[in-house]
């Protein structure tokens, strides 16, 4: 149920019921808000950045092999 709410895949009726429950249940409300935040933080922060120099080097290597027919 929690993931359906996060992924916005619940019916309007179910959403209303869940929101009603969340108003009175701190346990679920905190779990939902912090899980949403977890996803948002991972989505908006680049943790495995590829520096420009590395990108160009790998790109050149790939295209050189492709041009030779691999």
């Amino acid at each position, binding site marked *: 149920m929690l993931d359906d709410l996060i992924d916005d895949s619940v019916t309007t009726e179910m959403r209303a019921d869940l929101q009603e429950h969340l108003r009175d249940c701190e346990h679920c409300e905190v779990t939902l808000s*912090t*899980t949403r935040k977890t996803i948002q933080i991972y989505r908006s*922060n680049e943790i495995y950045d590829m520096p420009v120099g590395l*990108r160009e080097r790998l790109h050149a290597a790939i295209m050189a092999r*492709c*041009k030779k027919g691999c």
Partner: protein
Amino acid sequence: MATIQSIAGENEQHPDVALVERVRGGDVSAYDTLVRKYDRQVFRIAQHITQNREDAEDVMQDAFLKAYEKLDQFQGNSKFYTWLVRIAVNESLMRLRKRRTGRMVSIDEDVETEEGSVPRDLADWAPDPEQNYTQSELAEILRKTIQGLPPGFRVVFALRDVEGLSTEETAETLGLSVPAVKSRLLRARLQLRERLSRYFRKKAGSTGMAPTGMETEK
């Protein structure tokens, strides 16, 4: 009119399909465009799975070269991107296996853990908790945290929540059922949430705004 528009919409060709057709016709520069379009994503996915920079570099090269060699096998009934990601995931798992000196690694490994199925740490987080850390501290926390998940959870979270594939695309890419993807995704999310709580929870007696700096992993 609406019907005509909807038929036209359904028949609309994805730009990647046109690029693939050009490559098949011998235009290598079209492949250059595809590589530049998806190289960052492939590199990120490889890093998520292998947790090793050198391996991710090798995976990126091998995945694009393999995709180029096998382009004739690309059917066009799935997106080029999900087809490419499938190759990259398989290459990443092979690299992970090599690192572990031949021990089998699959996306089913260690997924039977009960951790995260029931939230334990229910402390609320400070508002905008990531702002209590510098960009590099935050990246280190996020890397260290996701590294602790089993590969089968990491890859589902990376494809679905970081790269934005749909549940169905993630299932197709990994050869898993939709319910299996949903189950792993929920547990991955809850495990990450629980592990991040040690850094992001509201401090007792604080307004949640005071900088805390890096904490030591227990």
